[in-house]
């Protein structure tokens, strides 16, 4: 199998050397003029021939020229476009720099026609935002949060208050692949979900795929969220910071060697726990409640053909009560990348990636002292090639070896503790993958992106593997040594997206993808917790997979000022996981016996209208959807609504530039309450009222809705070094008490009466921010 891919790669390389010289090709990078940051997705258009290409996620482009003398138009959203006349008859490298429009509000008229990528590109079910584009969207506590903004797009279900997880097209919260500079982030939330792990100071942009996922991605069946960190200013030193009541931030960036290498380091820490220090109680004084994030990146341009990037993230949440109890968790990632331009048409990226997620619990009371520790980690080696065969055809292919290791929660107690140490076996797996994809625009009206990913997940020893009967009791066990492969899970994942362009303004697109997932998160609470257990595919757990088809209509209005799309999808999910009643998921060597396996389906319709230019911009998104699951041993084997099944989901975001100094923003969200299990009766056991449950997720939480407002005031004159501005925010303006939990209990005074009550987390929350820069 892999031999064929290697042969293919070699064939492509030969192809380059044999046929690469026919026409003149140019290549290079597009960058921000002030900071040297590479720009992802910038357009390079040859005016005479109307050929257009875009920069890839490393800012690289390759363009084949029809004539050696031509004028190029280079443009990027939020930047002043430039025209460059070039005259070359040889392969040459060009680097272009664009200047940010900044806060000028006069509309920039971009000549040329290619502002309609959303219509013409074969990709569907995808969104791309730069951090600049979302900075005026109102958010909780005034902290810009890319994860919360993503949740206002069609087909992306909000996790709700107190949750950073999101649900794409009816999928689960653990079925989203979240990448930070290509490294997997296992847990994207801080403070149990109130903040995401992505400090917006350090983020350049984000891309979300919810369908038609390209073949270079794999490993999660619902979506891919690909986040890029900024590289660091390689022209000038710059510092940026913030001091707030909740958190402080500081970012430093600058050149190491001007135009050649740069660094960026960004940190953030909350300090709500400092208030605990004011307490007179010594235990409270010694308590902890904070999180911090650290992002860092270095890049070094060795020469015209080689660039090296090193980036990392480290974050931790720490909760503690005196020295009696402490609980901390966090992610760490590290990525080293080498971009190499083999020639004008062939771009290579080699990445070596590590990421992990750990949590630790320390208990230290009178008779028991112990530590619970859990870790999940992966090493990933990726080789990607982009081959720009000609302006109609781009090939992407690559290989990927991913080593995963799970150390489930183990308990370490000291000798005279009242608990025994428990060591649950580690689990190992290696996933080998190869992919090939081809983006092809044979004619003006048709373009297609198709490809294939092949994965072989190898369940590795050492370890004891059990088989279970129908009731989850272990019936046999087998020991494997570290050199043995316990099982291969081999899968082929075809991917296809195609667009039929009706005219400049409208197109019809369709896509199909199959994706396989070998890492599974076991959550048996309504909000996912850091202590959730992860498992790999094994002899009992088959890889989850999803087959998704989608069909959409895309249309732009008024010279691409408005983008409109309607997409419908159907998704089938195989080998889904749930649990037996009262399943014991902690420190259980027979854990797999507690699992139940079933299937899922989701379908829906998504409408999206966005205004991209002018004084007023924003979007409206609406999703009509259904998501269901079926397990033989749950709900009598009948289909039931998934918890995140939302019939209606609406988001409206609007930002208006009132004047040179003021802009205002508003967003409104509404969605059908989650499906939930409520009792349908009651009875008494042991003198207590107990509740009688009949149907899984047969009820609904109340509908969720909320309005937020924001205003920014920037009075500073232009061209002055010192500038200051104000941001005002109002979260949940009409103080809606959205239910976080609904529970049932006996009435305090009369045990014969039972009552329902709800807990709401946030009422109205105003925030004020003062910014200044010089």
């Amino acid at each position: 199998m892999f031999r064929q891919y290697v042969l293919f790669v070699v064939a492509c390389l030969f192809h380059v050397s044999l046929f690469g010289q026919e026409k003149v090709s140019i290549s290079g990078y597009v960058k921000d003029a002030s900071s040297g940051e590479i720009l992802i997705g910038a357009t390079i258009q040859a005016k005479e021939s109307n050929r257009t290409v875009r920069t890839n996620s490393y800012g690289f482009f390759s363009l084949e020229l029809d004539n050696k003398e031509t004028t190029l138009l280079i443009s990027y959203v939020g930047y002043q476009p430039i025209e460059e006349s070039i005259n070359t008859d040889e392969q040459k490298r060009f680097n272009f720099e664009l200047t940010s429009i900044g806060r000028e509000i006069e509309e920039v008229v971009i000549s040329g026609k290619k502002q309609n990528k959303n219509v013409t590109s074969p990709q569907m079910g995808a969104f791309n935002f730069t951090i600049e584009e979302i900075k005026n969207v109102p958010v909780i506590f005034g902290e810009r949060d890319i994860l919360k903004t993503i949740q206002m797009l069609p087909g992306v279900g909000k996790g709700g208050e107190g949750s950073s997880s999101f649900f794409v097209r009816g999928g689960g919260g653990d079925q989203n692949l979240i990448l930070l500079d290509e490294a997997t982030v296992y847990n994207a939330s801080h403070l149990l979900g109130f903040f995401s792990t992505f400090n917006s100071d350090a983020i350049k942009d984000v891309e979300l795929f919810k369908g038609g996922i390209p073949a270079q991605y794999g490993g999660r069946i619902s979506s891919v969220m690909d986040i890029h960190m900024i590289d660091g200013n390689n022209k000038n030193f710059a510092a940026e910071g913030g001091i707030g009541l909740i958190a402080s931030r500081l970012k430093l960036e600058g050149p190491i060697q001007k135009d050649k290498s740069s660094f960026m380091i960004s940190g953030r820490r909350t300090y709500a726990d400092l208030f605990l220090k004011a307490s007179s109680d010594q235990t409270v004084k010694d308590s902890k409640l904070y999180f911090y994030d650290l992002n860092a990146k270095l890049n070094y341009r060795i020469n015209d053909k080689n660039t090296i990037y090193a980036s990392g993230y480290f974050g931790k949440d720490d909760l503690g009560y005196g020295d009696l109890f402490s609980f901390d968790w966090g992610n760490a990632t590290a990525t080293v990348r080498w971009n190499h331009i083999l020639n004008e048409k062939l771009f290579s990226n080699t990445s070596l990636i590590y990421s992990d997620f750990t949590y630790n619990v320390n208990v230290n009371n009178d008779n028991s002292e112990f530590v619970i520790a859990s870790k999940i980690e992966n090493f990933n080696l990726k080789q990607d090639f982009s081959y720009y065969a000609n302006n109609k055809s781009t090939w992407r292919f690559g290989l990927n070896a991913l080593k995963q290791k799970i150390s489930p929660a183990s308990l370490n107690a000291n000798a005279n503790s009242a608990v025994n140490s428990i060591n649950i076996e580690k689990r190992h797996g290696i996933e080998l993958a190869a992919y090939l994809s081809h983006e092809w625009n044979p004619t003006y009206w048709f373009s297609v992106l198709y490809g294939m990913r092949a994965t072989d997940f190898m369940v590795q020893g050492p370890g004891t593997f059990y088989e279970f009967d129908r009731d989850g009791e272990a019936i046999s066990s087998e020991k494997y040594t570290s050199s043995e492969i316990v099982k291969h899970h081999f899968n082929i994942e075809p991917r296809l997206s195609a667009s039929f362009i009706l005219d400049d303004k409208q197109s019809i697109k369709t896509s199909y993808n199959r994706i396989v997932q070998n890492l599974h998160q076991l959550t048996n609470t309504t909000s996912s917790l850091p202590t959730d257990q992860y498992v790999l595919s094994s002899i009992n757990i088959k890889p989850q997979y999803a087959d998704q088809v989608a069909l959409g209509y895309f249309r732009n209005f008024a010279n691409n000022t408005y983008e409109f799309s309607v997409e419908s999808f159907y998704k089938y999910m195989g080998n889904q996981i749930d649990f037996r009643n009262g399943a014991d998921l902690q420190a259980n060597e027979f854990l797999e016996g507690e699992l139940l396996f079933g299937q899922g389906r989701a379908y829906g319709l998504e409408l999206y209208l966005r205004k991209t230019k002018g004084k007023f911009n924003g979007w409206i998104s609406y999703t009509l959807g259904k998501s269901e699951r079926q397990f033989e041993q749950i709900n009598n084997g009948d289909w039931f609504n998934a918890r995140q099944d939302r019939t209606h989901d609406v988001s409206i975001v609007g930002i208006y530039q009132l004047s040179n100094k003021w802009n205002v923003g508003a967003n409104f969200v509404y969605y059908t309450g989650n499906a939930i299990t409520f009792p349908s009766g009651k009875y008494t056991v042991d003198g207590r009222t107990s509740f009688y449950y009949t149907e899984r997720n047969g009820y609904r939480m109340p509908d969720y809705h909320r309005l937020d407002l924001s205003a920014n005031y920037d009075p500073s004159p232009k061209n002055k070094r010192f500038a200051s501005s104000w941001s005002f925010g109002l979260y949940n303006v009409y103080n809606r008490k959205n239910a976080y939990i609904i529970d049932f209990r006996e009435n305090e005074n009369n045990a014969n009466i039972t009552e329902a009550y709800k807990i709401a987390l946030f009422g109205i929350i105003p925030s004020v921010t003062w910014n200044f820069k010089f």
Partner: protein
Amino acid sequence: MRFYYLYTVLFCMLFASCEELIDVNLNEANPRYVIEGDLSDLTSEQIIKVSQTVAFNAPVRNKPIDNAIVRVMNDKGEVYTFNSIGDGAYSASFKPKDKTRYNLSVTIGDEVFESSSYMNPYIDVDSLGIIEDVIFSDTVYSVTLKFVDPKDQPNYYKYNISVNGKDFIFSRVFSDKFNDGLYVTHQISDNRNDILIGDTVVVRRQIIDKPVFTYWNDVLSINPGSAAPANPTSNISNGALGYFSVSSAKKYGFRIKFK
């Protein structure tokens, strides 16, 4: 261009989580039978209760069933017939013996419900104690029982608590999963009310079998954050709710005094 940012945030937060009573429209389900048998060697009169579920908003807690035929038989063939004493309760006079299996049969009309429970021998307590905890300026108490857990066999413990002479209510169950064979401390408190200075506390400790542990552990695992609350796993056949347990048990008294 050179920027030095200084960025100050002022939050005026009304961060108050709030709780309020609401009306929820719940369906009415077909009633199911509930059987509750907690037999032990503490007394020589054993009680088994039979009832039915009622609608959530019914003005009563359950519907007692008085026309059942309730029998318990041990593995030596001795049969104990329980007689209805009203309000869904049935009684029989005998004291169960440890290392014996007891089988339950309840017949209601033409439906038969069966279960079985093994009575494990008692595990003696070595010492008793009282623990004082200060949780943010409040001083609360709990009681402790220390004992040696028998090694290399699974053991399950259930505790009920009575404070100041009130009815016994369920407190905790424990297994020896994490402390098999060790000198173990079980800490018991009242789930609903804090134990305070001057209180009289009685703890009932039962050595139960695994299905009964599973039942009570399920009860404890259902909390407002459960993704999918379900009925606790019953050890009674034919879809009845509730449990049947035969255990060896003892009571321990405590008085919370000033030191």
